Every structure is written in C-alpha cells, then in structure tokens.
C-alpha cells in the first residue's frame, strides 16, 4: 500500500513538473484528479450552481497562473485546497456583504413545519415511511441550510470540509494556512451555532 502511495506521489510530482514546464495535458490531468472534490466543496459551500461554477473556474485559473510558484513544500492537494478555500471564502464574504443575495437555491417552503425539537423530529423521521421521510429530510436540510448561512465564512468552510469532504482537522488547517487549534475552535463554534439554530442545544 505504501509503495502504491509513493508511486502515486512520484507520478504527481512528474505531472506537476510537466505542467510547470507548460505542458497543458499534464495540467488537465491534474485538474481531473481533483476537480470532482473541488466542485463538490464549491457546491456545498455556495449552494448555487452558478456560484460553484465561478469558484471552480476562478480557482483552477489561479492554480494555472501560479503553478510556477509551487515549490513542493506541501502536497499539491493541500496547495490546491488552499487556493480553492480562499476563493470560496472571498465569494462568501462578498455574498454576505450583499444581504439581498443570500437565499440558497435549495430553500423549501415548509419551514414552519419543522419541529422545534430536532431529535424528536429525527426519531419520527426514522420511524416514518419513505415519502414522508424524504420530506422531513428536506425540511431539516432547509433549516440546516439557513443555519449555515448564519455561520461566518471560515466556520462554514471548516464545517463543510470536516463533514462533507471528510478531511482531518490538521489537513483543514494546512489548507486554510492556519493552526489545528484555530480550526478546532472554528469547528466547535460552528457545531454549537448550528445545534442552537436547530433548537437542540442542551
């Protein structure tokens, strides 16, 4: 397994070097290795396809323009994520500065029906049949989406990277260019705020 990993790392180094030398095919291969994860993070963060597309384009164009600065001091993945997260944060900050521009695409119309006790709702949720279960899932999702809008951009990106990208706190810290301790604080605050918004803080 270790041999496989190290071969992959060597391959990646060669690809990055070729891309740095102006090899477009090598660059596109690097894009294809990671762009699914990048788009997924962008969609989860921005909640709108148009914004996620902008993040995708801007991030990879930045990578393309700045690739010659990459010195292999960290993995390419970490470096890429640093750029992607910065682009996401910029977009979110800009969006927060425009209050009229904050409605997520996924908002549903049944907010009033969401139970105040999140766990009670979850228990019902598991006990019910599929169509209703789906609807309840949508309701909770809608409420969670609203709650996410109230997090600071940094808290939000940490929460997304932890829960949806499955990254370790150390890796998130590397990507955001900050310490693991700072990331821990952001995750703690994000979790508290979300649970409080969902009416479950004890």
């Amino acid at each position: 397994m270790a041999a496989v990993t190290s071969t992959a790392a060597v391959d990646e180094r060669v690809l990055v070097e070729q891309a740095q030398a102006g090899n477009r095919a090598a660059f596109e291969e690097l894009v294809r290795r990671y762009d699914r994860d990048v788009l997924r993070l962008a969609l989860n963060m921005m909640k709108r396809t148009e914004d996620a597309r902008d993040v995708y384009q801007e991030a990879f164009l930045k990578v393309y323009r700045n690739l010659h600065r990459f010195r292999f001091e960290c993995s390419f993945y970490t470096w890429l994520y640093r750029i992607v997260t910065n682009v996401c944060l910029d977009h979110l900050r800009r969006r927060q500065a425009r209050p009229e521009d904050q409605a997520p695409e996924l908002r549903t119309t049944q907010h009033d029906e969401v139970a105040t006790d999140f766990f009670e709702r979850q228990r019902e949720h598991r006990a019910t049949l599929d169509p209703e279960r789906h609807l309840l899932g949508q309701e909770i999702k809608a409420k969670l989406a609203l709650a996410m809008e109230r997090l600071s951009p940094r808290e939000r990106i940490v929460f997304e990277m932890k829960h949806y990208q499955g990254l370790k706190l150390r890796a998130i810290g590397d990507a955001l260019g900050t310490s693991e301790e700072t990331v821990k604080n952001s995750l703690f605050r994000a979790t508290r705020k979300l649970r409080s918004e969902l009416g479950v803080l004890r």
Partner: protein
Amino acid sequence: MSASAPNNSCKDVAPLLVFYACGECNEQERGLVEQHLALCASCKAQLEDELEFESALRSLPETSQQLDPSGILLGRCRSELAEQLDDLEHPRGKEVGGLGWLRRWMGLHPMWSAATLVLFGLVAGAQITQWFTGRNDANGVDAMSVRPSGPRLTEDQLSKMAVAGVNFAPSTSNPGVKTVRLQLSAEQPVELSGSLDDSNVRSVLTYVVKNGQRFDSGVRLDCLDALKTLAEDDQVREALLEAARKDENPAVRLKALEALRVSAADAEVRETLLAALEHDSNPGVRVEAVNLLVHSIGAQDDTLVVTDPGDFSGLPSRKAVRGSGGALDDDSMQNVIRALEEMQHKDPSRYVRMRSAAALREISARNEQ
C-alpha cells in the same frame, strides 16, 4: 458539574465531546473523556446528542448531490475551463468572419437585437421541430429506450445521440465488476447502464472516443477512463488509435496513448506512437509516446523470451519478433531508434529532447545485457 465526576470536571470534558464524536481527539483527550463518561450521566447524554447530530448530518442529502446529481455540471465546468485556458494560451485577435459590425450594432440597439433574436429563435425552433418530426416519421425510429439487455444500438442511433454524463459504480450483484452508467439523449433522454462487457455500453464508449469532435472533452476523457482496461479488444484498440491520432484535445490524446500501453508492442500501435512523437503538437503527448516506445521494446523482449527462448540472441534489434498484436521486426525497431535520435536534437521542447536521449540510452543498455 455532575456530583459523581471524578478527577476531571464536566467543564473540562464537555468542550471535547464535539471532537470525540467526530474522531478528532488525541489519545490523552480520549482517555480523559472515557474516564469521565464512565461516571457522568449528564456528559454521557450530551455525547449521545453529539453522535446523533453527526449521524443526522450524514443521513441528510448532500447539497452537491442535489444540485448536480448526474455530474453534468462537472463536464460543463471542465469544458469552460478548457476554453479559458485556450484563451490564455492563444488570446483571440481580430473578429473572425467580419462579424464585428454585427456585435457593435447589437450593442447600440439592444431592443431591436433582442426582438430579432427572439424571432430568429421562433423560426429556427419551428423548422427544427418539423425536421425532427419528419425524420422520425420517415425512418420509423422509436424513442431510444435501452436497458442492459436491450436491443443492440444501431449506427443511426449512435450517430444521433448526445452523452450528458458517464459514471462508474460497483455492480450490486458482483462488487468486483464495475457498472458503467451513461446518460444519453437522443430523441429523448435515456440512461444506459451495464458492465463493460455489455455490447451497447461498449459501443457507446468506443463511438464517443472514435468520434471525438461531436462530444465534450470531459465526456471523451471519462469514456477513455472506462475503456482503458480493454485496449486488447480490437474494436476498442481501433477507437483508441483514432483518438490518439486525431483528437483535438491533448489531454484526450495523452489518455488514449496511456490506454494503449498494454498493446504497445502491436505494430499499428507502434506506428501511432512514432507518429505522435514526430508530429504531435503537444510536448506532453510526445513524452508519453517516448515512454511507450521504450516500454514497447521491453514488452517485445519479454515476448521474445517467451516465444522462442532457444533462438534468443540477446539482441532484439536484430531479430524478427511477433508481438502480442502483430509483427515487429528489425525495421520497426530501427524506425524507433531513428525517430528518437532525430528528436533528441530536433524537438522544440527541451524536456522531449532529454527524454529521447534517455530513452536511447535505456534501449542501448538493454541491448547490451
């Protein structure tokens, strides 16, 4: 604080529970939490809530899945990025085709432009609908609705289809076998799903690779990904050779060459590799051609030993050899060496020159063994 709390207090432990629930506590913190939980009912209940919150989050549908369930957005992002990179590499100069006046006129008369476009759209829409209806009536082609064991797709159906997405998933009945799911749209959208052995799946994949100009480069790359394990199949190899020679996107040509690695010793594949080395405009593709040519000679040596060990003189370049897919002889080997010798001096890319020189050293070292 709970009355029964031992050495550590709820105040110390409670903030750790979020991290304990998501597996982010270090060993010392984990020990502290577990010791405390054994005796503190209140913190234990809080941990249960944390775990339930985690599991609820996991059970909710993910936004990215809802916004782009079939991966179509990814394909769009890829082609937009490719266009932007093209623009960066070859900035567009003057308006081509003398349409600058039209753009300027449209800028000055936005209302008239919009009205003209709407009218044009209506007329074109009506004409196209008529044309499609007419074709369906004339050919009697039913809306394509294909299942894994469905009727074989005709050339006509293939020539009309568009591919919106290609996904892979392990088969439910046999996890070792991958299922390919293709989102197609012909007369109407249809999803085609099956293993790589399914003749329709294979036909669509090879058709896309072979007729690259009709499809998005992201889709072409996905199809190549699916086909890369089948390069020894004649139909697939033919499509890969076509893509390696003619696809306009260097990433596609590169991937097609990579997929041909297993049959690099085949005479036709080697010809394609030589053509790529000598004529491909992209240095990355040329480097891959060098790598595969060296590999093909290695593969040829192996074939020699297996085919006729008694007659092996140790100098493959002087022997006539039959590879896995066709005849490889002295001339073919000499052609490779000649091309590499030429490229080590002539290629505009320094990296390709260096790689060609290194390849010649590798081949000569192998011959001396």
